């Protein structure tokens, strides 16, 4: 007869059983006092050991760290491997760059988390509360100021200032002056333009205006000024900066904060979500800064002659050689000061609005302050990473890539390849850079999702992501060609936007909204500094006058490709309907295929 053992006994014997405790042992009930009233149980915080605290925090950090790693790593690896394998160049200061990239990741991690915990709730509170309490002019005025504040807080703006030091004063004196002496004014002008764009965009969805005429009206002066500036040899060099400034502004701070206020105003005005409400501000915020920067450039030309600027900069350089710069003028002190200076105005502004206009108590003040602190710390770390990681890597890639097809001093052997092969490699490099950096952009995915919902699934999320990526890829490749062949920017911008205008005219409202906004979402805080630095390095290596203009080509590309894709899908549906009306027996399967 076989022996039988109870499973429970067996498991207990080998120590496999679980344990149990009574919940009463650590969930004590409240006691009553002599009168029978409850004595409240004090609310004690849970005490954790160091190991437990680590296990609690690890998933919180690792998710956010991986997000930023995914944004930075592929691009950085691509640039590094390209230099190593195709150009056979060892990257200089590779440890410094790696450290810098790590700082970018950590900085963005802190910054984004701080944004979500601190600034966004504050912004949303204002977005929901302000339009209901204050008259429209006050609200619009605050929107305008908010536009300036968010522009200063935008991480990619620092890249513009970083780019300033790489511009040669002899070749482009006015560009140099704007990026150095006038750098503060430049950001202010860009900010004011974003503020104006926010005001106009808000009015647009308050009154349900169509985006098309606004685009025509905004583009007309921009293109006119561009053509005017291209006639003046001194101003031509500033065109690239002006057009790139538009791409820099629409980043992770501006878009959500300005949108939340705009949507709040529309909701309070009785215009709920029409689906398209959120669109338009991003478009205008990337067009208006062009106008602002061009006007600033024209103003600067009236204040000083090129000779004076060159003289002043050489004098300043000589003076800098003698005086030991203060701690806040050298890295890393400079980065920390500029980080604090970027965030604080926005924070103070938001708090003032909260205190003076809303007079509402902020829930979780501690958390909001923690978030703002994180944002500032993140911005400082990101700025340091910008200097040592992204700018350095971009500049080194930019200065090395031309060696594929032309002789560059100090790079042996150069040219590495036959001219045509090398040129093809350089352009293919730019194309892949554009495609790869866009397809992974989280903001683009979000836009794709919205688009799919807006068009009832006709325009698939994947279609939009590919259309935008291809557009950016061609844009960056064309921008690089501009630097190689020294094409004037006006030749590309004017025809490009002319095509976009024609497409805007024949496309329907939905696609116009999506297409023009898709240009703004592609330029995040990692891509902008990399591409800017690469362009300037490239420009210096090929002796181009200035290295700007790549980003604005990356903005016009997707506008055209998205509208073309939209027209194509409309054409296919129209053709299918025609076939169906001739042959009414066609089954639903064909319809599905036509839509796909």
């Amino acid at each position, binding site marked *: 007869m076989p022996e039988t053992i109870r499973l*429970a006994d067996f498991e*207990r014997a080998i120590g496999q*059983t*679980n*344990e*149990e*405790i*009574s*919940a*009463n*042992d*650590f*969930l*004590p*009930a*409240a006691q009553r006092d002599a009168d029978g009233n*409850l004595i*409240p*149980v004090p*609310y004690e915080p*849970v*005490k*954790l*050991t160091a*190991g*437990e605290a680590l296990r609690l925090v690890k998933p919180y950090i690792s998710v956010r760290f991986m997000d930023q790693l995914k944004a930075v790593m592929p691009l950085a690896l691509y640039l590094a491997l390209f230099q190593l394998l195709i150009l056979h160049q060892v990257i200089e200061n590779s440890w410094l760059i790696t450290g810098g990239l790590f700082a970018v990741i950590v900085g963005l991690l802190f910054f984004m988390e701080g944004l979500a915990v601190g600034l966004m709730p504050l912004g949303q509170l204002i977005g929901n509360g302000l339009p209901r309490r204050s008259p429209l002019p006050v609200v619009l005025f605050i929107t305008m100021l908010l536009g300036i504040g968010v522009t200063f807080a935008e991480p990619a703006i620092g890249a513009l200032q970083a780019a300033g030091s790489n511009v040669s004063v002899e070749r482009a004196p006015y560009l140099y002056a704007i990026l150095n002496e006038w750098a503060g004014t430049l950001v202010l002008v860009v900010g004011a333009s974003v503020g104006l764009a926010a005001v106009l965009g808000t009015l647009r969805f308050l009154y349900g205006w169509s985006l098309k005429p606004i685009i025509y009206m905004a583009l007309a002066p921009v293109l006119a000024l561009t053509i005017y500036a291209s006639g003046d040899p001194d101003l031509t060099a500033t065109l690239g900066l002006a057009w790139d400034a538009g791409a820099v502004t629409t980043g992770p701070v501006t878009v959500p904060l300005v949108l939340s206020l705009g949507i709040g105003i529309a909701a309070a005005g009785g215009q709920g979500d029409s689906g398209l409400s959120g669109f338009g501000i991003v478009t205008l915020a990337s067009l208006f800064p062009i106008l602002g920067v061009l006007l600033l450039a024209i103003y600067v030309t009236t204040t000083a002659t090129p000779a004076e600027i060159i003289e002043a900069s050489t004098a300043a350089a000589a003076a800098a050689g003698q005086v030991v710069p203060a701690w806040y003028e050298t890295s890393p002190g400079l980065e920390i000061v500029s980080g604090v200076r970027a965030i604080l105005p926005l924070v103070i502004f938001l708090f003032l609005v909260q205190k003076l206009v809303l007079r509402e108590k902020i829930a979780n003040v501690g958390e909001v302050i923690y978030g703002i602190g994180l944002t500032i710390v993140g911005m400082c770390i990101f700025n340091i990473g910008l200097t040592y990681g992204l700018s350095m890597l971009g500049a080194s890639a930019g200065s090395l890539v031309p060696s594929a097809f032309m002789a560059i001093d100090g790079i042996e052997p150069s040219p590495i390849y036959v001219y045509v092969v090398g040129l093809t490699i350089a352009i293919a490099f730019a194309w892949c850079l554009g495609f790869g950096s866009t397809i992974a952009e989280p903001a683009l995915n979000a836009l794709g999702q919205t688009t799919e919902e807006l068009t009832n699934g006709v325009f698939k999320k994947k279609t939009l992501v590919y259309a935008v990526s291809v557009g950016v890829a061609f844009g960056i490749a064309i921008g690089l060609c501009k630097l190689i062949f020294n094409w004037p920017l006006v030749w590309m911008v004017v025809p490009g936007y002319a095509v976009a205008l024609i497409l805007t005219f024949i496309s329907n409202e939905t696609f116009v909204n999506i297409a023009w906004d898709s240009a703004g979402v592609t330029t995040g805080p990692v891509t902008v500094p990399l591409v800017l630095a690469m362009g300037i390095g490239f420009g210096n290596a090929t002796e181009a006058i200035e290295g700007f203009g790549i980003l604005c080509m990356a903005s016009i590309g997707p506008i055209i490709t998205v509208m073309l894709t939209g027209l194509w899908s409309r054409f296919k549906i129209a053709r299918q309907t025609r076939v169906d009306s001739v042959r009414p027996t066609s089954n639903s399967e064909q319809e599905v295929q036509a839509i796909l």
Partner: protein
Amino acid sequence: MSKITYLTDSWLITCVVSSATKQSEKMLLAARDAGAKGAVGHYAKGYGARERLGALGIAVETDKTVLTLLVSSEQRDIVVEAMFKAGELDRPGAGYIYVMPIERLATFIPESIMSRLREDNRVRQAL
């Protein structure tokens, strides 16, 4: 994988009240003072009372908040009583509260508490 430590003698308190008022916040504070350590809230739609009360039914909100709390058996009655009073559940249309036994409950138990309970011999082998 370490052993699971189950908690016995635990009870589930579920409470359905109107979302529109501050009722649920008051009830949560009362539950906290009575020793409950946490709660989960869901938003829900309620049906029934509104229809049966006739014209007066319009006074009953259909938007409801469902609060669920896990408490020990010693806490159970005190917490329910505190919540009932704080939520004034004896008012018509105010909502209701119910209690159910929990067979087994398992979650993270801080090491500081666990070692104290081990010293006091409060940890048993699960059957």
